[in-house]
C-alpha cells in the first residue's frame, strides 16, 4: 500500500491549498436555530450554519459540547426540539427518509452487527439503499482494495473478531457505499493505523473535490487543520467560531488551531494543571 499512500499524500498536498474554493456554491446543509434539550439541559442551543456543496467542514468542540448530538440530529437519528435543517434540499423533519438516502454517517461508536461477516454486513447495507447486487459487489471490491482489507477475513470472519481498525474500515465503507452527496464523520480515524489514516484523509479530500460535502468531527486538531476548508467550533451547544482555519488562527494570533481551540474552550490552563498533577506521582 505504501506507494499508493505516497501518491495519495502528494496529491493531498495540492488539495490542501484549495481553501475557499467552494465559496458561492449552493448550500448542501442549512441549519437554522437547531435546538436539542434533554430534560432541563440544553445540549444544542439555537445552532445555525450553512455548508456549501464540496466543502470539508471540521466540526469541533470539547467533550459534551453537543457535536455528536448535532450530528445525530442532522442524520435523522434524533428529533430536534426546535429550529430546522435542510440537507441536500430535503427538510430534516418532513423528508427524513430522503435526507437519510442522501447522507452517509460514520458514528463515533463504530457499531456493527458483530455476528455478520464483513461482506454480509456491507451487502446488507447496500441492500438497504436499494443498490443492486452486482453494483454493490463492484463498490465493495473498490473499497477492499482501497483499504487493503484482507479478503479472507472479510468473507470468513464475523465482525466481532475484527481488529478495531478493520472494523472502522468496514464502517467507513458502509457509509460511502451508496455514494452519498453528504457524509458525516464522527471521529473517523479512531483505530486506523497511520497508513490507513493518510489514505482516508486523501479520500475525503478527493470526495470533496468531486462535490461531496463532508462534516468532519474530531479531536485530532492538526488533522482537521490540514484537511478541512473550514472549521466550526461549538461549546455548550452554541456556535463559538466559524471560518477557514488559517484565517481564524491568524485573526486570533494563535499560531495553531490547537492553541486557538484551547483558548476558546477554557483549555489554556491545561499544561500547568498537568504539571501539577504529575507532581502527585512523585514518591
Amino acid at each position, binding site marked *: 500500500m505504501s506507494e499508493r499512500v505516497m501518491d495519495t499524500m502528494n496529491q493531498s498536498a495540492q488539495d490542501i491549498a484549495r481553501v475557499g474554493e467552494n465559496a458561492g456554491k449552493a448550500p448542501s446543509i442549512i441549519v437554522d436555530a437547531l435546538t436539542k434539550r434533554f430534560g432541563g439541559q440544553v445540549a444544542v442551543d439555537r445552532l445555525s450554519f450553512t455548508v456549501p456543496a464540496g466543502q470539508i467542514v471540521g466540526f469541533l468542540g470539547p467533550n459534551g459540547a453537543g457535536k455528536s448530538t448535532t450530528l445525530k440530529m442532522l442524520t435523522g*437519528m434524533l428529533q430536534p426540539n426546535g429550529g430546522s435543517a435542510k440537507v441536500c434540499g430535503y427538510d430534516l423533519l418532513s423528508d427524513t427518509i430522503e435526507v437519510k438516502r442522501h447522507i452517509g454517517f460514520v458514528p463515533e461508536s463504530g457499531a456493527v452487527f458483530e455476528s455478520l461477516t464483513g461482506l454480509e454486513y456491507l451487502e446488507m447495507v447496500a441492500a438497504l439503499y436499494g443498490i443492486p447486487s452486482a453494483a454493490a459487489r463492484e463498490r465493495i471490491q473498490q473499497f477492499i*482494495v482501497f483499504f487493503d482489507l484482507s479478503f479472507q477475513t472479510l468473507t470468513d470472519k464475523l465482525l466481532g473478531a475484527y481488529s478495531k481498525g478493520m472494523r472502522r474500515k468496514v464502517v467507513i465503507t458502509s457509509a460511502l457505499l451508496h455514494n452519498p452527496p453528504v457524509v458525516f464523520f464522527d471521529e473517523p480515524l479512531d483505530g486506523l493505523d497511520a497508513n490507513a489514516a493518510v489514505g482516508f484523509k486523501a479520500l475525503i479530500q478527493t470526495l470533496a473535490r468531486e462535490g461531496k460535502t463532508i462534516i468532519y468531527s474530531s479531536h485530532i486538531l492538526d488533522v482537521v487543520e490540514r484537511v478541512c476548508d473550514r472549521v466550526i467550533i461549538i461549546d455548550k451547544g452554541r456556535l463559538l467560531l466559524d471560518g477557514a482555519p488559517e484565517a481564524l488562527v491568524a485573526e486570533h494570533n494563535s499560531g495553531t488551531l490547537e492553541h486557538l481551540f484551547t483558548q476558546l474552550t477554557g483549555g489554556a490552563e491545561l499544561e500547568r494543571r498537568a504539571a501539577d498533577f504529575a507532581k502527585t506521582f512523585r514518591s
Partner: protein
Amino acid sequence: MSVQSTSVVVPDGRGRSFGGETDSTRVLRRLFLTLFLRGRSSRGLNRKWAPKSISSRLGWSLIFYGVFGLTALTFLRGSVFVLSAFLHAMTFFFVGVFVASSAGEVLFNQLENDILLHRPVTARALLWTKITVLIQVSLWLAGAFNLTGLIVGASMERGSLWYPVGHVISTVMEAMFCTGSVVLLYQLCLRWFGRERLDGLMTTVQVGATVGFILMAQILPRVMPYISDLDGADTGRAVWFLPPAWFAGFDAAISGQGGWDAWGLAGLAIAATGAVLWAAFGRLAGDYNEGLQRLSETSLARPASGKSGRRWSDRLASLFPLSWWLRDPVERASFTLSFAYLLRDRDVKLRLYPAIAPVLIMPVLAVFGFSRGGPGAAMSAMVYTAFGGVFLGQASMTGLTILQFSQQWQASDLFRLAPVAGPVQFCNGARKAIQVFMMIPLVLIVGLMIARNNGEPAQILLLLPGLMTLPVFSWIPCIKGRAVPLSRPAEDARSARRGLGIVFALLLSMVLSWTSTIAFQRGWFIGFLAVELVIVGILYALVRRAANRAVWPSIE
C-alpha cells in the same frame, strides 16, 4: 485520489445472505433473523465455528419442546376442547414468556441505532420486520410443542380430521396475539407516560406481561375440572376471560364440537387478535420511532445520590452487618457493581424481573388453591407453598446466572487485569448483591403472602425445605467462575442449555415439594428437615470447594 476499480472478485459462495435483496423490508427481516439465530456479538469466532450460536441452541429447544409436547398423548380419551385448552395454555406460556423476554432487546437495542437509524428505513418497517422475526421463531417453538397434539386431535376418539387445520390456524393467531399484546403494551406506555420514563416502563411492561402470560397459562388447566368440555353442558365463566381458552374454542368450533360456546370463543379469538394487531402495528406504530430516538439521546440526568455524594447502595454496604459481610475489598467492589446494575441497568432488569416473576406466582396459586375449597384444596395449597419455597431457593441461582450477561460485557476484562488470583471473589460479591437486592425482599413478600392468606399458619413452615437449598443453589453458578458479573454477551442468555437446566431444577422442585408436603401431613416434618440439612450441608461444602478452585474461563 479516487477509489479505484480492481480485478478482485467477490466469490459467490459466501456472504450471500443479503446479496440480491433490494426491498428493505426483506433485507431487514433477513438481518434480524440472522442476528437472532447467531446472536448479536461474538468474540473471535470464525464463521465456520458458528454452531456455538443461538441456532444450534434453538435446535435443542425445539427437540425439548417436541418431547414435552408428547404429554398431549394423555388426552387421547378427552374432548377436543380439553386437549386444545392444554395445548394453548402451554403454548401461551412458552410463546408469551419468550416474546416478553425477547421483545425489549429486539425492539429497543441501543447499539443498533448507530447502525440503522441513519439509514433510509422507516420505523414502521423496522418494527414490522422485528415482530415478524419474533412471530416466526415463536411459531417454531409452538410448532415443535404442538406437533404431537395435532396428531392426537385428529386421531382421538372424539377428534376430527379438521382439527389439525383449525389448530394450526389458532396457534398462528395465538403467536400473533401474544406478540401483538407485548408490542401494544410498550406502545401504550410510551404514549401515556412519555419517552422520558421509557427505561423504567420497559421493565415494568415486560414483568407485567410475563406475569400475565404465566398466570393465564397456569390458571386455565386448573379451572378445567370445573368447566365442561363445551359439549353443551355448563360452561364456566372463567373461560371467557382466559385467552388460551378462546383459541381452544376456535379448535373445537372448526372440529365441529362445542356448539355456540365454541363459536363464541372462536369469534373472541379472531376479534382480539385482529384488534391487538391493528392497534399495535397500525394505530400506534408511529410511537415506536419516538421510542427508538429516546434510546439515542444522551441522558444528562444523574442517578440520585445523598448529600455526601454517595449512592444509597454504597451507604448500605458500609452499614453493619453488611460492612462486615463485605470486608473483602474485591467482593465489596463486585457487590457495588452488581447492585448498581441490578438497580439501574435496563438490560439487566429486563432479564431479571421476568425471570423471578414465577416465584411470586406460586403463592398466588397457593392462595387460589385454598380459596377454591373442596377436598384437595388444602393439599394443593400446601404443595404450592412448598413449591414457592423451592422456587425461592433457586431464585438466587437464576438471578446470579442472569447477572453474568450484559451488553457491556467487554468491560469485564478489567477483572482479569486486576491482580486477583481467580474469579471467586467477583462471583461472591455478585452473589451477595443478589441476596441483599433480591432474596431478602422476595422471601419477605412470599412469606407475607402465604402467612396472610392461607388457612393454617403452620403451613408457612413448608417454605423451609426450599429455602434451605438456597446456599447451595446460590453457589452453583460460581463453580467454574462463570458467575462473574456482566462478563458474558447478552445474547448468550438465550440458551437452550439454560432451559434444560431449568427443567432439571423444576423436576427437583417437584420432588422436594411433594416429599416435604407429605412429610408435613404425616408429622415427619422435623425429621425430614434434619435429613435435608445434612444433605444440603454436604452439597454446600462440595460446591464451595469447587467454586474456590475456579480459574478464569478462557476468552473465546
